Protein backbone atom coordinates (compact mmCIF):
# COMPACT_ATOMS: atom_id res chain seq x y z
CA UNK A 1 0.00 0.00 0.00
CA UNK A 2 1.09 3.59 -0.63
CA UNK A 3 2.34 5.31 2.51
CA UNK A 4 0.21 8.19 3.81
CA UNK A 5 1.26 11.06 6.08
CA UNK A 6 0.13 10.58 9.64
CA UNK A 7 -1.09 12.54 12.65
CA UNK A 8 1.01 11.91 15.80
CA UNK A 9 -0.73 9.54 18.19
CA UNK A 10 0.27 8.14 21.54
CA UNK A 11 -1.70 5.01 22.44
CA UNK A 12 -5.07 5.76 20.88
CA UNK A 13 -7.28 2.90 22.04
CA UNK A 14 -10.34 1.57 20.23
CA UNK A 15 -12.59 -1.17 21.58
CA UNK A 16 -14.96 -2.82 19.08
CA UNK A 17 -17.51 -4.94 20.90
CA UNK A 18 -20.64 -6.85 20.11
CA UNK A 19 -22.01 -10.34 19.66
CA UNK A 20 -20.20 -13.28 18.12
CA UNK A 21 -21.17 -13.41 14.43
CA UNK A 22 -21.59 -9.65 13.99
CA UNK A 23 -18.21 -9.42 12.29
CA UNK A 24 -16.39 -7.63 15.09
CA UNK A 25 -13.09 -9.46 14.48
CA UNK A 26 -13.17 -8.87 10.71
CA UNK A 27 -13.90 -5.20 11.34
CA UNK A 28 -10.89 -5.01 13.68
CA UNK A 29 -8.64 -6.71 11.18
CA UNK A 30 -9.58 -4.43 8.27
CA UNK A 31 -9.29 -1.26 10.36
CA UNK A 32 -6.00 -2.37 11.92
CA UNK A 33 -4.53 -3.39 8.59
CA UNK A 34 -5.41 -0.03 7.04
CA UNK A 35 -3.85 1.93 9.90
CA UNK A 36 -0.74 -0.28 10.12
CA UNK A 37 0.07 -0.77 6.45
CA UNK A 38 -1.65 2.24 4.84
CA UNK A 39 -0.96 4.90 7.47
CA UNK A 40 2.23 3.30 8.87
CA UNK A 41 1.11 3.44 12.49
CA UNK A 42 2.16 0.93 15.07
CA UNK A 43 -1.01 -1.07 15.66
CA UNK A 44 -1.85 -4.01 17.85
CA UNK A 45 -5.17 -5.74 17.40
CA UNK A 46 -6.14 -8.27 20.04
CA UNK A 47 -9.28 -10.32 20.32
CA UNK A 48 -11.40 -11.77 23.04
CA UNK A 49 -14.41 -13.97 22.60
CA UNK A 50 -16.19 -16.93 24.11
CA UNK A 51 -16.13 -20.52 22.84
CA UNK A 52 -19.42 -20.05 20.91
CA UNK A 53 -19.41 -19.67 17.10
CA UNK A 54 -22.37 -17.28 17.20
CA UNK A 55 -23.80 -15.33 20.11
CA UNK A 56 -21.80 -14.67 23.24
CA UNK A 57 -19.58 -11.65 23.68
CA UNK A 58 -16.98 -10.74 21.09
CA UNK A 59 -14.48 -7.95 21.40
CA UNK A 60 -11.63 -6.67 19.30
CA UNK A 61 -9.17 -4.15 20.74
CA UNK A 62 -6.92 -1.86 18.76
CA UNK A 63 -4.08 0.24 20.09
CA UNK A 64 -2.76 2.77 17.57
CA UNK A 65 0.40 4.75 18.15
CA UNK A 66 3.17 6.57 16.36
CA UNK A 67 5.62 4.78 18.68
CA UNK A 68 6.22 1.06 19.28
CA UNK A 69 3.53 -0.47 21.50
CA UNK A 70 4.46 -2.60 24.47
CA UNK A 71 1.17 -3.53 26.14
CA UNK A 72 -1.13 -4.77 23.35
CA UNK A 73 -4.51 -4.68 25.12
CA UNK A 74 -6.66 -1.63 25.77
CA UNK A 75 -6.55 0.03 29.15
CA UNK A 76 -8.27 3.41 28.85
CA UNK A 77 -10.50 3.42 25.80
CA UNK A 78 -10.69 6.49 23.54
CA UNK A 79 -13.38 5.09 21.26
CA UNK A 80 -15.84 2.42 22.31
CA UNK A 81 -18.01 0.90 19.60
CA UNK A 82 -20.83 -1.14 21.13
CA UNK A 83 -22.96 -3.15 18.72
CA UNK A 84 -25.04 -4.90 21.38
CA UNK A 85 -26.66 -3.91 24.67
CA UNK A 86 -24.57 -6.41 26.60
CA UNK A 87 -21.32 -5.08 25.16
CA UNK A 88 -22.36 -1.51 25.92
CA UNK A 89 -23.16 -2.37 29.53
CA UNK A 90 -19.99 -4.35 30.03
CA UNK A 91 -17.39 -2.04 28.51
CA UNK A 92 -18.81 1.46 29.09
CA UNK A 93 -16.89 1.62 32.37
CA UNK A 94 -13.58 1.24 30.52
CA UNK A 95 -14.14 4.38 28.45
CA UNK A 96 -11.79 7.14 29.53
CA UNK A 97 -13.25 10.56 30.47
CA UNK A 98 -13.74 12.45 27.21
CA UNK A 99 -13.72 9.25 25.16
CA UNK A 100 -16.34 8.69 22.51
CA UNK A 101 -19.10 6.09 22.54
CA UNK A 102 -20.57 4.86 19.29
CA UNK A 103 -23.59 2.55 19.55
CA UNK A 104 -25.75 0.46 17.30
CA UNK A 105 -29.11 2.01 18.19
CA UNK A 106 -30.97 -0.93 16.60
CA UNK A 107 -29.82 -3.16 19.44
CA UNK A 108 -28.66 -0.82 22.19
CA UNK A 109 -31.82 0.62 23.69
CA UNK A 110 -30.52 1.71 27.09
CA UNK A 111 -27.55 4.00 26.59
CA UNK A 112 -25.69 4.84 29.79
CA UNK A 113 -24.95 8.44 28.78
CA UNK A 114 -26.54 11.15 26.69
CA UNK A 115 -23.22 11.98 25.00
CA UNK A 116 -23.00 9.31 22.35
CA UNK A 117 -22.90 8.81 18.61
CA UNK A 118 -25.63 6.49 17.47
CA UNK A 119 -26.70 4.91 14.19
CA UNK A 120 -29.12 2.02 13.64
CA UNK A 121 -26.49 -0.15 11.97
CA UNK A 122 -28.46 -3.41 11.95
CA UNK A 123 -31.53 -1.70 10.44
CA UNK A 124 -29.41 0.15 7.87
CA UNK A 125 -27.87 -3.11 6.70
CA UNK A 126 -31.28 -4.77 6.44
CA UNK A 127 -33.28 -1.89 4.94
CA UNK A 128 -30.76 -0.15 2.72
CA UNK A 129 -28.62 -3.06 1.57
CA UNK A 130 -30.89 -6.04 2.22
CA UNK A 131 -27.88 -7.79 3.65
CA UNK A 132 -27.61 -7.99 7.46
CA UNK A 133 -24.06 -9.42 7.20
CA UNK A 134 -22.77 -6.11 5.83
CA UNK A 135 -23.53 -4.39 9.13
CA UNK A 136 -19.89 -4.37 10.25
CA UNK A 137 -18.76 -2.60 7.10
CA UNK A 138 -21.33 0.15 7.68
CA UNK A 139 -19.81 0.53 11.14
CA UNK A 140 -16.39 0.74 9.51
CA UNK A 141 -17.66 3.57 7.30
CA UNK A 142 -18.90 5.47 10.34
CA UNK A 143 -15.60 4.92 12.17
CA UNK A 144 -13.72 6.19 9.11
CA UNK A 145 -15.76 9.38 9.22
CA UNK A 146 -15.10 9.76 12.93
CA UNK A 147 -11.34 9.20 13.07
CA UNK A 148 -9.31 12.18 11.85
CA UNK A 149 -6.28 9.97 11.16
CA UNK A 150 -7.99 7.38 8.94
CA UNK A 151 -8.50 8.14 5.26
CA UNK A 152 -11.47 6.62 3.48
CA UNK A 153 -9.38 5.61 0.47
CA UNK A 154 -6.95 3.70 2.68
CA UNK A 155 -9.72 1.91 4.56
CA UNK A 156 -11.40 1.04 1.26
CA UNK A 157 -8.14 -0.45 -0.05
CA UNK A 158 -7.73 -2.57 3.08
CA UNK A 159 -11.36 -3.71 2.81
CA UNK A 160 -10.90 -4.75 -0.79
CA UNK A 161 -7.67 -6.58 -0.05
CA UNK A 162 -9.23 -8.57 2.78
CA UNK A 163 -12.55 -9.63 1.27
CA UNK A 164 -13.13 -12.13 -1.53
CA UNK A 165 -14.02 -10.58 -4.90
CA UNK A 166 -17.61 -11.86 -4.77
CA UNK A 167 -18.64 -9.62 -1.88
CA UNK A 168 -16.42 -6.60 -2.56
CA UNK A 169 -18.97 -4.37 -4.38
CA UNK A 170 -21.65 -4.65 -1.70
CA UNK A 171 -19.10 -3.95 1.02
CA UNK A 172 -17.79 -0.84 -0.71
CA UNK A 173 -21.43 0.29 -0.90
CA UNK A 174 -21.81 -0.43 2.81
CA UNK A 175 -18.63 1.51 3.64
CA UNK A 176 -19.89 4.55 1.74
CA UNK A 177 -23.32 4.24 3.32
CA UNK A 178 -21.79 4.21 6.80
CA UNK A 179 -19.63 7.21 6.03
CA UNK A 180 -22.57 9.16 4.55
CA UNK A 181 -24.94 8.37 7.41
CA UNK A 182 -22.32 9.36 9.97
CA UNK A 183 -21.72 12.63 8.16
CA UNK A 184 -25.44 13.33 8.26
CA UNK A 185 -26.16 12.33 11.85
CA UNK A 186 -23.00 12.81 13.89
CA UNK A 187 -23.15 16.49 14.75
CA UNK A 188 -21.67 16.58 18.24
CA UNK A 189 -18.22 15.30 17.31
CA UNK A 190 -15.40 15.14 19.82
CA UNK A 191 -13.08 18.05 19.12
CA UNK A 192 -10.36 16.97 21.51
CA UNK A 193 -9.47 13.30 21.58
CA UNK A 194 -7.86 12.27 24.83
CA UNK A 195 -4.96 10.57 23.10
CA UNK A 196 -2.19 12.66 24.63
CA UNK A 197 -2.42 12.04 28.35
CA UNK A 198 -1.52 8.36 28.59
CA UNK A 199 2.14 7.52 28.16
CA UNK A 200 3.82 4.46 26.72
Amino acid at each position, binding site marked *: MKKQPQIQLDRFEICLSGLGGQGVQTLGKILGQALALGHSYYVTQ*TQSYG*PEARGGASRSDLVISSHPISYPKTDKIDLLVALSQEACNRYFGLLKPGGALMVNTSLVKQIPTNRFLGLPFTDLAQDRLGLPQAMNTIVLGAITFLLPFAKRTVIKKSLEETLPAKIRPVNVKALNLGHREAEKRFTDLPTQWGGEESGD
Partner: protein
Amino acid sequence: MAKPKKKSGREIFALGAEAVVEGALLAGCSFYAGYPITPSSEIMEGMASRLPGTSDGVFVQMEDEIASMGAVIGASLAGRKAMTATSGPGFSLMQEFIGYGCMIEAPLVIVNVMRGGPSTGLPTSPAQADVQQARWGTHGDHSVIVLSASDVQECLAMTVTAFNFAERYRTPVILLLDEITAHTREKITVPTPDSFEILYRLQPSMPPEWYKPFEETVRGVPPMPPLGAGYRYHVTGLTHDPLGFPTQRPDEIVALLERQFRKIDQFFFDIQLADEIETADAEIVVVAYGSVARSAQLAVAQAREKGVKAGLLKLKTLFPFPRTKLERLAPHCKILVVPEMNMGQMSREVKRVNTGQFAVRTINRVDGQIITPAEILKVLRRR
Protein backbone atom coordinates in the same frame (compact mmCIF):
# COMPACT_ATOMS: atom_id res chain seq x y z
CA MET B 1 19.73 -17.13 17.66
CA ALA B 2 18.41 -16.42 14.21
CA LYS B 3 18.71 -12.73 13.46
CA PRO B 4 17.77 -11.08 10.19
CA LYS B 5 21.01 -10.05 8.51
CA LYS B 6 19.53 -7.11 6.66
CA LYS B 7 16.31 -5.20 6.82
CA SER B 8 14.29 -6.07 3.78
CA GLY B 9 11.23 -8.09 2.97
CA ARG B 10 7.52 -7.55 2.78
CA GLU B 11 5.30 -5.96 5.41
CA ILE B 12 2.15 -7.75 6.51
CA PHE B 13 -0.46 -7.21 9.21
CA ALA B 14 -0.55 -10.65 10.74
CA LEU B 15 -1.55 -12.75 13.72
CA GLY B 16 1.14 -14.28 15.90
CA ALA B 17 -0.06 -17.63 14.56
CA GLU B 18 0.40 -16.44 10.97
CA ALA B 19 3.92 -15.28 11.84
CA VAL B 20 4.68 -18.79 13.10
CA VAL B 21 3.64 -20.11 9.68
CA GLU B 22 5.87 -17.58 7.91
CA GLY B 23 8.76 -18.50 10.20
CA ALA B 24 8.31 -22.22 9.66
CA LEU B 25 8.30 -21.81 5.88
CA LEU B 26 11.41 -19.61 6.02
CA ALA B 27 13.14 -22.24 8.14
CA GLY B 28 12.42 -24.87 5.52
CA CYS B 29 9.60 -26.76 7.20
CA SER B 30 8.11 -29.14 4.63
CA PHE B 31 5.86 -31.33 6.77
CA TYR B 32 2.97 -30.52 9.07
CA ALA B 33 0.70 -33.02 10.80
CA GLY B 34 -1.82 -31.87 13.33
CA TYR B 35 -5.27 -31.74 14.76
CA PRO B 36 -7.00 -28.37 15.14
CA ILE B 37 -7.57 -26.91 18.59
CA THR B 38 -8.31 -23.36 19.78
CA PRO B 39 -6.27 -21.17 20.09
CA SER B 40 -3.69 -22.82 17.84
CA SER B 41 -5.93 -23.59 14.84
CA GLU B 42 -4.77 -20.56 12.83
CA ILE B 43 -1.30 -22.14 12.61
CA MET B 44 -2.80 -25.30 11.16
CA GLU B 45 -5.02 -23.30 8.78
CA GLY B 46 -2.01 -21.34 7.59
CA MET B 47 0.07 -24.47 7.01
CA ALA B 48 -2.85 -26.15 5.22
CA SER B 49 -3.12 -23.28 2.76
CA ARG B 50 0.61 -22.62 2.30
CA LEU B 51 2.44 -25.97 2.48
CA PRO B 52 0.85 -27.71 -0.53
CA GLY B 53 1.96 -24.75 -2.65
CA THR B 54 5.64 -25.30 -1.85
CA SER B 55 7.84 -27.59 -3.93
CA ASP B 56 7.69 -30.65 -1.66
CA GLY B 57 5.40 -29.61 1.20
CA VAL B 58 3.10 -32.14 2.84
CA PHE B 59 0.17 -31.27 5.09
CA VAL B 60 -1.80 -33.98 6.87
CA GLN B 61 -4.75 -33.60 9.21
CA MET B 62 -4.46 -36.57 11.54
CA GLU B 63 -7.13 -38.27 13.64
CA ASP B 64 -5.75 -36.86 16.90
CA GLU B 65 -2.70 -35.32 18.54
CA ILE B 66 -1.11 -38.69 19.35
CA ALA B 67 -1.06 -39.64 15.69
CA SER B 68 0.08 -36.12 14.76
CA MET B 69 3.24 -36.47 16.83
CA GLY B 70 3.83 -39.93 15.39
CA ALA B 71 3.60 -38.58 11.86
CA VAL B 72 5.91 -35.68 12.67
CA ILE B 73 8.55 -38.05 14.09
CA GLY B 74 8.27 -40.26 11.02
CA ALA B 75 8.71 -37.29 8.70
CA SER B 76 11.70 -36.12 10.71
CA LEU B 77 13.37 -39.54 10.38
CA ALA B 78 12.73 -39.38 6.64
CA GLY B 79 14.81 -36.21 6.53
CA ARG B 80 12.19 -33.48 6.62
CA LYS B 81 11.88 -30.48 8.85
CA ALA B 82 8.58 -31.24 10.54
CA MET B 83 6.28 -29.48 12.97
CA THR B 84 2.92 -29.58 14.68
CA ALA B 85 0.93 -27.08 16.73
CA THR B 86 -1.56 -27.62 19.50
CA SER B 87 -2.88 -26.33 22.81
CA GLY B 88 -3.01 -27.76 26.35
CA PRO B 89 -5.28 -30.82 25.93
CA GLY B 90 -3.54 -31.84 22.70
CA PHE B 91 -0.14 -31.21 24.23
CA SER B 92 -0.99 -33.69 27.00
CA LEU B 93 -1.79 -36.32 24.37
CA MET B 94 1.54 -35.71 22.63
CA GLN B 95 3.67 -36.32 25.71
CA GLU B 96 4.47 -40.00 25.18
CA PHE B 97 5.71 -39.40 21.63
CA ILE B 98 7.67 -36.34 22.74
CA GLY B 99 9.65 -38.69 24.99
CA TYR B 100 10.14 -41.02 22.03
CA GLY B 101 11.36 -38.08 19.98
CA CYS B 102 13.88 -37.21 22.71
CA MET B 103 15.06 -40.82 22.97
CA ILE B 104 15.62 -41.31 19.24
CA GLU B 105 16.86 -37.71 18.94
CA ALA B 106 14.45 -36.61 16.23
CA PRO B 107 14.66 -32.92 15.27
CA LEU B 108 11.13 -31.48 15.29
CA VAL B 109 9.16 -28.46 16.47
CA ILE B 110 6.01 -28.43 18.58
CA VAL B 111 4.13 -25.16 19.06
CA ASN B 112 1.91 -25.09 22.12
CA VAL B 113 -0.43 -22.09 22.28
CA MET B 114 -1.33 -22.11 25.94
CA ARG B 115 -4.93 -21.69 27.06
CA GLY B 116 -6.54 -21.93 30.49
CA GLY B 117 -6.48 -25.39 32.06
CA PRO B 118 -6.46 -27.98 33.47
CA SER B 119 -8.38 -30.25 31.08
CA THR B 120 -10.64 -28.46 28.58
CA GLY B 121 -10.34 -25.38 30.79
CA LEU B 122 -10.80 -22.04 29.04
CA PRO B 123 -10.50 -22.66 25.27
CA THR B 124 -10.41 -18.99 24.24
CA SER B 125 -8.57 -17.46 27.18
CA PRO B 126 -4.85 -17.07 27.75
CA ALA B 127 -2.72 -18.83 30.35
CA GLN B 128 0.92 -19.80 30.84
CA ALA B 129 0.27 -22.93 32.82
CA ASP B 130 2.05 -25.51 30.60
CA VAL B 131 5.55 -24.26 31.38
CA GLN B 132 6.59 -27.08 33.68
CA GLN B 133 4.75 -29.61 31.50
CA ALA B 134 6.80 -28.50 28.50
CA ARG B 135 9.95 -29.29 30.45
CA TRP B 136 8.85 -32.36 32.35
CA GLY B 137 5.67 -33.54 30.65
CA THR B 138 7.06 -36.76 29.25
CA HIS B 139 8.45 -39.32 31.64
CA GLY B 140 12.06 -40.15 32.31
CA ASP B 141 15.17 -38.01 32.48
CA HIS B 142 15.36 -36.17 29.22
CA SER B 143 16.70 -32.89 27.98
CA VAL B 144 14.58 -30.65 25.83
CA ILE B 145 14.59 -27.04 24.65
CA VAL B 146 11.61 -24.81 25.43
CA LEU B 147 11.32 -21.38 23.80
CA SER B 148 8.83 -18.54 24.06
CA ALA B 149 7.82 -15.41 22.13
CA SER B 150 6.07 -12.25 23.25
CA ASP B 151 5.15 -10.33 20.11
CA VAL B 152 4.28 -11.10 16.51
CA GLN B 153 7.69 -10.35 14.98
CA GLU B 154 9.25 -12.51 17.68
CA CYS B 155 6.85 -15.36 16.84
CA LEU B 156 8.43 -15.47 13.40
CA ALA B 157 12.02 -15.21 14.64
CA MET B 158 11.60 -17.74 17.44
CA THR B 159 10.00 -20.26 15.07
CA VAL B 160 13.10 -20.05 12.87
CA THR B 161 15.24 -20.37 16.00
CA ALA B 162 13.22 -23.41 17.12
CA PHE B 163 13.91 -25.19 13.82
CA ASN B 164 17.57 -24.22 13.96
CA PHE B 165 17.96 -25.56 17.50
CA ALA B 166 16.09 -28.76 16.60
CA GLU B 167 18.38 -29.41 13.66
CA ARG B 168 21.60 -28.38 15.39
CA TYR B 169 20.99 -30.37 18.56
CA ARG B 170 18.84 -33.21 17.15
CA THR B 171 16.10 -32.69 19.68
CA PRO B 172 12.41 -31.85 19.91
CA VAL B 173 11.99 -28.10 20.53
CA ILE B 174 8.83 -26.76 22.11
CA LEU B 175 7.72 -23.20 21.32
CA LEU B 176 5.36 -21.99 24.03
CA LEU B 177 3.03 -19.18 23.03
CA ASP B 178 -0.09 -17.99 24.77
CA GLU B 179 -3.50 -17.08 23.42
CA ILE B 180 -2.74 -13.35 23.44
CA THR B 181 0.53 -13.67 21.52
CA ALA B 182 -1.00 -16.01 18.95
CA HIS B 183 -4.14 -13.88 18.51
CA THR B 184 -2.54 -10.44 18.37
CA ARG B 185 -2.25 -8.79 14.98
CA GLU B 186 0.68 -6.51 14.31
CA LYS B 187 2.61 -5.18 11.38
CA ILE B 188 5.65 -7.34 10.81
CA THR B 189 8.35 -7.61 8.20
CA VAL B 190 8.70 -11.03 6.63
CA PRO B 191 12.39 -11.21 5.83
CA THR B 192 13.63 -12.66 2.57
CA PRO B 193 14.65 -16.34 2.80
CA ASP B 194 18.35 -15.55 2.51
CA SER B 195 18.32 -13.09 5.40
CA PHE B 196 18.27 -15.79 8.10
CA GLU B 197 20.89 -18.32 8.96
CA ILE B 198 19.12 -21.63 8.40
CA LEU B 199 20.68 -24.75 9.89
CA TYR B 200 20.35 -28.35 8.74
CA ARG B 201 21.09 -31.56 10.59
CA LEU B 202 24.56 -32.99 10.26
CA GLN B 203 24.95 -35.56 7.47
CA PRO B 204 27.37 -38.50 7.79
CA SER B 205 30.68 -38.13 5.99
CA MET B 206 31.66 -41.80 6.41
CA PRO B 207 30.68 -44.67 4.09
CA PRO B 208 27.44 -46.48 5.08
CA GLU B 209 29.19 -49.55 6.51
CA TRP B 210 31.07 -47.43 9.07
CA TYR B 211 28.02 -45.45 10.17
CA LYS B 212 26.70 -45.82 13.73
CA PRO B 213 23.48 -43.83 14.23
CA PHE B 214 23.98 -43.05 17.93
CA GLU B 215 27.71 -42.73 18.07
CA GLU B 216 29.54 -40.37 20.42
CA THR B 217 30.79 -37.19 18.73
CA VAL B 218 32.53 -34.02 19.91
CA ARG B 219 29.32 -32.04 20.04
CA GLY B 220 27.41 -35.06 21.32
CA VAL B 221 25.17 -34.89 18.23
CA PRO B 222 25.53 -37.85 15.84
CA PRO B 223 25.01 -37.24 12.09
CA MET B 224 21.53 -38.12 10.85
CA PRO B 225 20.94 -39.28 7.26
CA PRO B 226 17.35 -39.63 6.07
CA LEU B 227 15.91 -43.16 6.22
CA GLY B 228 16.37 -44.86 2.86
CA ALA B 229 19.58 -43.06 1.96
CA GLY B 230 21.61 -46.26 2.15
CA TYR B 231 22.66 -45.98 5.78
CA ARG B 232 21.52 -48.80 8.07
CA TYR B 233 19.36 -47.26 10.72
CA HIS B 234 17.46 -48.72 13.66
CA VAL B 235 15.38 -46.63 16.04
CA THR B 236 13.74 -47.74 19.24
CA GLY B 237 12.36 -46.15 22.36
CA LEU B 238 14.28 -48.77 24.35
CA THR B 239 17.61 -47.66 25.73
CA HIS B 240 19.97 -48.41 22.89
CA ASP B 241 23.63 -48.85 22.02
CA PRO B 242 25.51 -46.76 19.41
CA LEU B 243 24.05 -48.96 16.63
CA GLY B 244 20.53 -48.20 17.81
CA PHE B 245 19.71 -51.66 19.16
CA PRO B 246 18.37 -52.29 22.68
CA THR B 247 20.95 -52.65 25.40
CA GLN B 248 21.00 -53.47 29.10
CA ARG B 249 24.70 -52.84 29.62
CA PRO B 250 25.16 -50.21 32.35
CA ASP B 251 28.09 -48.55 30.57
CA GLU B 252 26.10 -48.14 27.35
CA ILE B 253 23.00 -46.91 29.20
CA VAL B 254 24.87 -44.20 31.04
CA ALA B 255 26.81 -43.21 27.92
CA LEU B 256 23.59 -42.70 25.97
CA LEU B 257 21.76 -40.68 28.62
CA GLU B 258 24.76 -38.56 29.52
CA ARG B 259 25.40 -37.74 25.89
CA GLN B 260 21.77 -36.74 25.42
CA PHE B 261 22.09 -34.27 28.29
CA ARG B 262 25.58 -33.11 27.40
CA LYS B 263 24.73 -32.23 23.81
CA ILE B 264 22.49 -29.46 25.17
CA ASP B 265 24.25 -28.63 28.45
CA GLN B 266 27.57 -27.73 26.86
CA PHE B 267 25.90 -25.21 24.54
CA PHE B 268 23.96 -23.21 27.14
CA PHE B 269 25.64 -20.03 25.85
CA ASP B 270 24.08 -20.63 22.43
CA ILE B 271 20.69 -21.81 23.61
CA GLN B 272 19.84 -19.57 26.56
CA LEU B 273 18.26 -16.47 25.05
CA ALA B 274 16.91 -13.47 26.95
CA ASP B 275 16.44 -9.78 26.25
CA GLU B 276 17.62 -7.31 28.85
CA ILE B 277 15.74 -4.02 28.96
CA GLU B 278 17.03 -1.29 31.29
CA THR B 279 18.71 -3.85 33.53
CA ALA B 280 22.18 -2.23 33.63
CA ASP B 281 21.51 -0.28 36.83
CA ALA B 282 18.21 -1.84 37.88
CA GLU B 283 17.56 -2.46 41.55
CA ILE B 284 14.33 -4.31 40.88
CA VAL B 285 13.97 -6.55 37.84
CA VAL B 286 10.85 -8.12 36.35
CA VAL B 287 11.44 -11.62 34.95
CA ALA B 288 8.72 -12.28 32.38
CA TYR B 289 7.99 -14.15 29.17
CA GLY B 290 5.22 -14.34 26.57
CA SER B 291 2.52 -11.67 26.43
CA VAL B 292 3.09 -10.77 30.09
CA ALA B 293 6.54 -9.48 29.14
CA ARG B 294 4.78 -6.76 27.13
CA SER B 295 2.79 -5.65 30.17
CA ALA B 296 6.03 -5.72 32.15
CA GLN B 297 7.78 -3.54 29.58
CA LEU B 298 5.16 -0.81 29.94
CA ALA B 299 5.20 -1.17 33.74
CA VAL B 300 9.00 -0.82 33.82
CA ALA B 301 8.83 2.33 31.66
CA GLN B 302 6.17 3.79 33.96
CA ALA B 303 8.20 2.87 37.06
CA ARG B 304 11.29 4.58 35.61
CA GLU B 305 9.23 7.75 35.10
CA LYS B 306 8.36 7.61 38.81
CA GLY B 307 12.02 7.25 39.78
CA VAL B 308 12.10 3.51 40.47
CA LYS B 309 15.22 1.85 39.05
CA ALA B 310 13.35 -0.99 37.39
CA GLY B 311 14.38 -3.35 34.60
CA LEU B 312 13.03 -6.24 32.60
CA LEU B 313 14.59 -9.60 31.83
CA LYS B 314 12.49 -11.05 29.01
CA LEU B 315 13.03 -14.79 28.74
CA LYS B 316 13.01 -16.23 25.22
CA THR B 317 14.47 -19.56 26.29
CA LEU B 318 12.55 -21.00 29.21
CA PHE B 319 14.46 -24.30 29.40
CA PRO B 320 17.34 -24.83 29.87
CA PHE B 321 16.63 -22.00 32.32
CA PRO B 322 18.95 -19.00 31.63
CA ARG B 323 20.47 -19.01 35.08
CA THR B 324 23.57 -16.95 34.23
CA LYS B 325 21.42 -14.08 32.98
CA LEU B 326 19.92 -13.83 36.47
CA GLU B 327 23.22 -14.20 38.26
CA ARG B 328 24.65 -11.31 36.29
CA LEU B 329 21.99 -9.04 37.81
CA ALA B 330 23.02 -9.83 41.39
CA PRO B 331 25.57 -7.00 42.02
CA HIS B 332 22.96 -4.24 41.74
CA CYS B 333 19.56 -5.95 41.84
CA LYS B 334 18.01 -7.04 45.08
CA ILE B 335 14.44 -7.86 44.11
CA LEU B 336 13.03 -10.02 41.31
CA VAL B 337 9.37 -9.83 40.33
CA VAL B 338 7.92 -12.78 38.41
CA PRO B 339 4.49 -12.11 36.89
CA GLU B 340 2.88 -15.04 35.09
CA MET B 341 -0.54 -16.35 34.14
CA ASN B 342 -0.33 -19.47 36.32
CA MET B 343 0.01 -20.36 39.99
CA GLY B 344 3.80 -19.91 39.91
CA GLN B 345 5.68 -22.14 37.47
CA MET B 346 8.57 -20.00 36.22
CA SER B 347 8.97 -18.45 39.66
CA ARG B 348 9.86 -21.98 40.86
CA GLU B 349 12.85 -21.89 38.51
CA VAL B 350 13.79 -18.40 39.62
CA LYS B 351 13.63 -19.49 43.26
CA ARG B 352 15.59 -22.65 42.45
CA VAL B 353 18.57 -20.75 41.05
CA ASN B 354 18.36 -18.02 43.69
CA THR B 355 20.95 -18.63 46.35
CA GLY B 356 19.93 -15.79 48.58
CA GLN B 357 20.94 -12.83 46.39
CA PHE B 358 17.38 -11.87 45.56
CA ALA B 359 14.04 -11.48 47.23
CA VAL B 360 11.50 -13.03 44.82
CA ARG B 361 8.03 -11.54 44.51
CA THR B 362 5.38 -13.29 42.43
CA ILE B 363 2.29 -12.01 40.65
CA ASN B 364 -0.04 -14.81 39.62
CA ARG B 365 -3.27 -14.62 37.70
CA VAL B 366 -5.37 -17.60 36.66
CA ASP B 367 -8.71 -16.01 35.72
CA GLY B 368 -8.13 -16.04 31.96
CA GLN B 369 -7.12 -12.36 31.90
CA ILE B 370 -3.73 -10.85 31.10
CA ILE B 371 -1.68 -9.36 33.93
CA THR B 372 -1.97 -5.60 33.43
CA PRO B 373 0.90 -3.11 33.57
CA ALA B 374 -0.83 -1.49 36.57
CA GLU B 375 -0.63 -4.73 38.58
CA ILE B 376 3.09 -5.03 37.93
CA LEU B 377 3.70 -1.33 38.56
CA LYS B 378 2.07 -1.64 41.98
CA VAL B 379 4.57 -4.32 42.98
CA LEU B 380 7.50 -2.38 41.49
CA ARG B 381 6.64 0.67 43.56
CA ARG B 382 6.28 -1.30 46.84
CA ARG B 383 9.79 -1.05 48.27
